[in-house]
């Protein structure tokens, strides 16, 4: 039997081989020390249980990245404005900010938003059908849905949705804009959000910006300087990732006919587990090569901590590779299989612990709605070409998904 390579990271190989390698790496060790393109060495965790242990341990913090004491060890240089956001705060300040935002995107609030998501998904499908029998599902469906939901959540007035979408989309990998254009759009977006905060402070409505802007009147006090990064984080994280997840889910189902046939028997009933499986399986379902590498935002150990038998020394950086943990072969023995009925799905794509994705309930709901409504309305939909992927971008998103029905 051939020895399976356990080097990490590894260059693109077939999805089956990537799954086999991830399994072998996780069987060999809980984590690997990797020299990152920026910020030096960092541990990258491969096993689900080790990842949960780290993510749930308050001895791992992010403050040194926010203050500039440490460069964020990562594949790209972390932009300054992202390092000033909630995800780089530690308790107790993090707790205060997070609670305020959490209430607006809680499971209960998101449940109340579902009907409007269903209505908007169907209006997008109406538009696609009205134009003919083909569409690019990225631009015509997967992107506009989360942007619309984000506008509603933040409280962007309907007349401003178009310009908000233009500014916000400039941050997207799919936009393909020049750096100058991105900077100009971001500046306009910043100014717009500043003005929106001031407007909602004077004239509050039932939206997130209003509740953040007026939190100063209660026990919690938030300044514009605190609200702005939260709003920007929601803009940047709020729809780019969700759009990618939606596209991946659609493409995965279309490329697994047996799973799609099953999905069509009960789209609403199977959407929740299909969504979790999409989040877990990620790019493994697209029939394209998969590289071994990737990670969520890192932490720094405040003291020596042993995780799964490996000592992580004080001051060392550590992060998890959710692609690896989803295929570790320990938490999930048959991880290579794309199974939309999987009940036990310990995926960590939206992270876990104190910094788990604030928008997770919203992202999940949008994915469930997007998958269920599209396939209910257009059960005969099929791809007309291979998904186009931007390999130059960190998240390597699908930028075009041509389909017909």
């Amino acid at each position, binding site marked *: 039997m051939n020895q399976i390579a356990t080097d990490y990271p590894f260059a693109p190989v077939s999805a089956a081989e990537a799954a086999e390698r991830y399994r072998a790496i996780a069987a060999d060790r809980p984590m690997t020390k990797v020299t990152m393109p920026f910020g030096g060495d960092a541990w990258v965790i491969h096993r689900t249980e080790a990842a*949960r242990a780290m*993510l*749930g341990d308050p001895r791992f913090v992010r403050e040194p990245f926010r203050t500039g004491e440490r460069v964020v060890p990562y594949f790209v240089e972390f932009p300054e404005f992202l390092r000033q956001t909630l995800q780089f705060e530690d308790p107790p300040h993090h*707790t205060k900010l*997070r*609670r305020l935002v*959490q*209430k607006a995107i*809680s*499971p*209960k*609030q*998101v*449940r109340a938003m579902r009907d409007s998501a269903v209505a908007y998904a169907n209006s997008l499908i109406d538009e696609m059908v009205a134009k003919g029998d083909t569409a690019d599902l990225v631009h015509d469906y997967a992107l506009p849905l989360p942007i619309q939901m984000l506008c509603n959540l933040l409280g962007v007035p309907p007349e401003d949705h178009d310009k908000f979408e233009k500014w916000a989309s400039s941050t997207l990998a799919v936009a393909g804009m020049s750096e100058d254009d991105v900077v100009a759009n971001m500046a306009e977006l910043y100014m717009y959000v500043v003005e929106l905060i001031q407007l909602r402070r004077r004239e509050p409505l039932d939206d997130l910006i209003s509740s953040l802007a007026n939190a100063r009147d209660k026990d919690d006090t938030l300044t514009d300087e605190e609200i702005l990064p939260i709003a920007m984080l929601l803009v940047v994280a709020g729809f780019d990732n969700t759009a990618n997840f939606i596209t991946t889910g659609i493409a995965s189902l279309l490329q697994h006919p047996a799973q799609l046939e099953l999905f069509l028997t009960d789209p609403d009933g199977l959407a*929740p587990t299909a969504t979790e499986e999409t989040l877990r399986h990620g790019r493994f379902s697209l029939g394209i090569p998969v590289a071994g590498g990737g990670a969520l935002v890192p932490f720094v150990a405040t003291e020596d901590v042993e995780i799964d038998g490996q000592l992580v020394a004080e001051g060392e950086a550590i992060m998890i590779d959710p692609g690896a943990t989803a295929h570790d072969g320990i938490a999930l023995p048959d991880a290579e299989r794309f199974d939309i009925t999987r*009940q*036990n799905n310990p995926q960590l794509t*939206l992270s*876990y*612990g*104190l910094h*788990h994705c604030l928008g*997770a*309930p919203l992202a*999940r*709901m949008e994915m469930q709605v997007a998958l269920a409504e599209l396939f209910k309305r257009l059960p005969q939909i099929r791809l007309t070409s291979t998904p186009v992927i931007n390999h130059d971008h960190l998240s390597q998103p699908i930028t075009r998904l041509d389909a017909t029905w």
Partner: protein
Amino acid sequence: MPKVFYTQPDGTVVAVAASPGDSVMATAVRNGVSGVVGQCGGSLSCATCHVYVDEAHRDELGTPGEDEDEMLDCTASDREDSSRLSCQLIIGEGDVHVTVPPEQL
């Protein structure tokens, strides 16, 4: 050794052996009990480990603190008088019976 009995929305009951001092959430997650998500790992910031506590245990498990009370307003399934976040329910020497709500996310 105490046990936690998790009644699922369809009426099936899953019994799990537990350790005193552990939470009802952690015990569920570790044993793959469906319907208890606990995405924030017990840091009171996700409301995805919501359970309804059996009448018989309400006194021994205490009442929600201020932070838990606030997060209980965020649960996906309706809040009831018996609602608790299971990450805040610490197992003692006796058995605990809880019911898992139909939705967490």
